[in-house]
């Protein structure tokens, strides 16, 4: 089974995620886009593992899942705490810090 | 796990898929009737007995009735999601059965094709079941959210919270089974139980935990809080009517059967004939095993109904507390025990079964203790009545006498740290 289509798919997902992070304004959505990127990575890992015939990639996918979970926990905690204070999770409303 | 899966003729697959589908639908219809009859008996009633012999066609009639009801799109509903939610809930319910082994290899009648009575199997079958069933949660929470009604929303959130809470316990309880079977493929687990007895005995605590978890997982009494009519009317499907409601209903009953079937496969030796019958040769060949299997499953279904008939509904906090503070630690501890024991046994040091049984009994006892009527944990003492609660004078409630001296406003009164 050839690798290209899977890598293409993962690249597509990754790009979608990246663009989403850049253009979307809702923190939650941005965050979901990041998770999408991570999962694109997972797909790439598994595909390459298949291509190389070793399991490293699959193990990597495991670790990535864990990390993603941890990120979810931390990230949602932060976003919720902001949401509780300013009733909106928009990245733009958070503008006390200017460059 | 035989190589045959995934390499069969397309028509065989189609046939088996259709059979499973039909089986599930029929089983559901039967279960509804079964439940109503049994509960009726438990409540000294008769139950449906008009349509068909023993009223067997009652649920079919209900289904038709539902189909003829008007379907409603509430004003505040998110149309698309509201529309799709039942579908999302139903499909996974069916899918879970794809890997449930109903029996050994048989020859399909009128042909000479050999095929196992199982749609397919894979090395991670059980994981697949868990994954698919938890997809159903999406349907519920989305349906609740899309209804645009407060009750439905709360019901959806609640049921999802409760499902995931008990899914953890369920998943943990299965770990020991995998340790014993050395595989996550359903057919191999069944085979393993053929070798060394039903896992229900050596893994009694896991079995008990699983059974509790499965009741919680399917939102059945005494854990049917999402449909707690008293608080939430119908829960997540408050706003659903007609066939959409029917689908939710169907999915719920299929899930009930699914977890029962999984329990059978995991702990009760799957389609293999129970001890006694299994001595008769030929009991485990041909189409007989389907009988054993359905029988065992029906046993669990009866358990469900029995519980519903006999136990009152739990309070939500009790329920969560039970799931998080009892089931999870116990199952973790049990996993540890099993690990160590198993290792000691394979090292061939000490007599296996004794220890396991003892350990099992101990943990089981612990578990049972949880069911005994809880001694009333003293609530934090009634805060001294503050006649100026929130800065406003408050008249004493009935049965509450004002303190002799008018209390002064005390802001920090009765604060306790987090």
């Amino acid at each position: 089974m050839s690798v290209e289509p899977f890598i293409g798919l993962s690249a597509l997902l990754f790009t979608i995620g990246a663009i989403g992070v850049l253009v979307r304004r809702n923190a939650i959505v941005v965050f979901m886009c990041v998770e999408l990127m991570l999962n694109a990575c997972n797909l790439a890992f598994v595909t390459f593992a298949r291509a190389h015939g070793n399991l490293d990639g699959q193990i990597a996918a495991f670790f990535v899942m864990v990390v993603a979970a941890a990120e979810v926990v931390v990230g949602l905690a932060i976003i919720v705490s902001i949401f509780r204070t300013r009733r909106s999770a928009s990245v733009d409303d958070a503008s006390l810090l200017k460059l | 796990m035989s190589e045959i899966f995934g390499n069969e003729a397309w028509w065989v697959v189609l046939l088996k898929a259709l059979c499973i589908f039909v089986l599930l639908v029929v089983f559901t219809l039967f279960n509804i009737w079964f439940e109503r009859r049994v509960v009726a008996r438990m409540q000294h009633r008769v139950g449906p007995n008009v349509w068909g012999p023993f009223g067997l066609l009652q649920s079919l009639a209900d289904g038709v009735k539902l189909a003829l009801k008007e379907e409603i799109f509430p004003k505040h509903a998110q149309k698309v999601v509201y529309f799709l939610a039942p579908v999302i809930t139903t499909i996974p319910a069916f899918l879970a059965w794809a890997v449930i082994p109903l029996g050994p290899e048989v020859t399909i009648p009128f042909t000479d094709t050999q095929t196992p009575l199982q749609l397919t199997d894979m090395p991670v079958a059980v994981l697949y079941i868990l994954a698919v069933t938890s997809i159903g949660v999406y349907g519920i929470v989305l349906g609740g959210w899309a209804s645009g009604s407060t009750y439905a929303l709360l019901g959806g959130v609640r049921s999802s919270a409760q499902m995931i809470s008990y899914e953890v316990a369920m998943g943990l309880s299965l770990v020991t089974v995998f340790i014993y079977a050395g595989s996550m493929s359903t057919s191999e687990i069944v085979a393993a139980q053929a070798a060394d007895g039903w896992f229900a005995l050596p893994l009694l605590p896991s079995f008990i935990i699983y059974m509790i978890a499965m009741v919680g997982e399917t939102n059945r009494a005494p854990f049917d809080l999402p449909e707690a009519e008293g608080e939430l009317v119908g829960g997540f499907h408050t706003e659903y009517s007609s066939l959409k409601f029917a689908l939710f209903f169907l999915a719920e009953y299929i899930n009930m059967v699914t977890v029962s079937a999984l329990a059978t496969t995991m702990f009760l030796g799957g389609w293999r004939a129970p001890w006694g019958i299994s001595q008769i040769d030929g009991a485990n060949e041909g189409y007989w095993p389907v009988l054993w299997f359905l029988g065992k499953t029906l046993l669990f279904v009866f358990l469900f109904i029995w519980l519903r008939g006999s136990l009152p509904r739990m309070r939500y906090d009790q329920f969560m507390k039970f799931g998080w503070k009892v089931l999870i630690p116990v199952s973790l501890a049990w996993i540890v025990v099993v690990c160590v024991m198993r290792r000691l046994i394979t090292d061939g040091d000490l007599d296996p079964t004794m220890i396991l049984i003892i350990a099992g009994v101990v943990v089981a006892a612990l578990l049972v203790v949880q069911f005994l009527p809880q001694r009333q944990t003293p609530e934090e003492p009634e805060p001294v009545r503050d006649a100026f609660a929130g800065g406003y004078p408050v008249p004493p409630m009935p049965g509450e006498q004002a303190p002799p001296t008018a209390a002064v406003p005390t802001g920090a009164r009765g604060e306790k740290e987090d």
Partner: protein
Amino acid sequence: MAPSPIDAPDIEYATLSPLLIVLGVAVLGVLVEAFVPRAYRFVTQVVLALAGLVAALVATVWVGSDLPEVGGDVVARGGPTGMGALSVDGPAVFTWGMLLVFGVLGVMLFAERRLDGGLSAFTSQASTPPGSGDERRATRLRIEHSEVFPLALFALGGMMFFASANDLLAMFVALEVLSLPLYLMCGLARRRRLLSQEAAMKYFLLGAFSSAFFLYGIAFVYGYAGSFALGDVSTAVSERIGGQNLLLAGMALILVGLLFKVAAVPFHAWTPDVYQGAPTPVTAFMAAGTKAAAFVAMLRIFYVAFDGARWDWTPVIWAVAIVTMLFGAIVSIAQTDVKRMLAYSSIAHAGFVLVGLAGLVTGSGLTSVSAILFYLLAYGVAVIGAFAVVMLVRDAGGETTHLSRWAGLGKESPLVACVFTLFLLSFAGIPLTGGFISKWSVFAAAWEGGAWPLVVVGVVASAIALFFYVRVVVLLFFAPPQGDGPSVVVPSPLTSSVIVVAAAVTIVLGVLPGPVLELVQQVGAFVR
């Protein structure tokens, strides 16, 4: 068929003891949170954390004292351990020590409670909305987030792991382990909570974004080399197997992730906001620790794994270094907030370190690695000290970080002003401060590697930056104080000792850098 049992891997627990101690103490800290009554929690945590750090430091010294010499083209010390997931070699152990020192200083800053009316710099309850009654109540009850200590230890453990990871996957995990606690800690400021929460959110979103890039890069490199171990990757790279595009894409993405962590232009956007928003102790800890860990990891990846492809990545490093130095220096001129100013200066410093990294001098003598290690040490200590000083200058609303409020500090309290000046001079690289020797060594390494144009740009950049630092010094000493002028709160021995230590180290590194230089030269080679 019965597959043969997997034979247990042998892990040199003794060699990893510093890491294990730090993480173990962090877990203990969580238990303390769970069981010790609130009254004693804070103190217990402080004592526990400090004890653990010191123990880890001792262990590090012990590990470092008997690193086996590894021959080869260059004499390196130490070797891979933990199934090759980590490599405890010279740079790794040195970085451990360095990070642990930063950790000790940082924890001492965390524990400072005298500045803000007996309360730490961290919010009472992060869950309460700012300005709400709950918050006031929590403050009145003197509730405190002593969780920051376990968090800091986790972050520290992650940093140590990151600096010594010898395997791309381990590196990613370490990266997250060090980042996640920092994200949280950024949001815990007691004063200006909205600012702090925003900082946390920005840091988190951008950080997660960049680590996703890092991860995708790892995926590509894995696809190219078929393994995560840096050694295998380097052999694959040197043999030029497989499609180069995978390798190039992978390197680029990994570089993005790392450059973000070290706050190099154009991935610096988070730095000023986070530095400003985060509680100052956290900022100090982060500025010193993250940079050190990330740069060592970067060195390891690019010197060990991608050494064979240096012609592909050095141009990028050159460009980034130039842009970073100039940008950091120029923009810092426009700053009016001390913490932002320090943030931009940290960006510029990242550029300087990159200059050293572009030198690629290996072998004996002053290698790029050793130069950078020295730089990181000097910079880290100075920056911790600087932020510690920032903690002291306060008014009714907490710290006053606006520069105009700092005017006339030299008159208000000459001592503090002088110490701060010392740190600024060290940043500027004035002789007889650590900054001078460190800047010196990276530039020397870069020039030796033939990157003299970078050195020239670096000199120009430091001249620009200089202008700003000197302007601040003028402000401190010669400008008339605004209104009643800034007030310097007398801190507890913790903070003051931190400042003293930082100042002392800065001077010693400037005047008698000999021993440290020799040390970094001894440890200045990675084990391949």
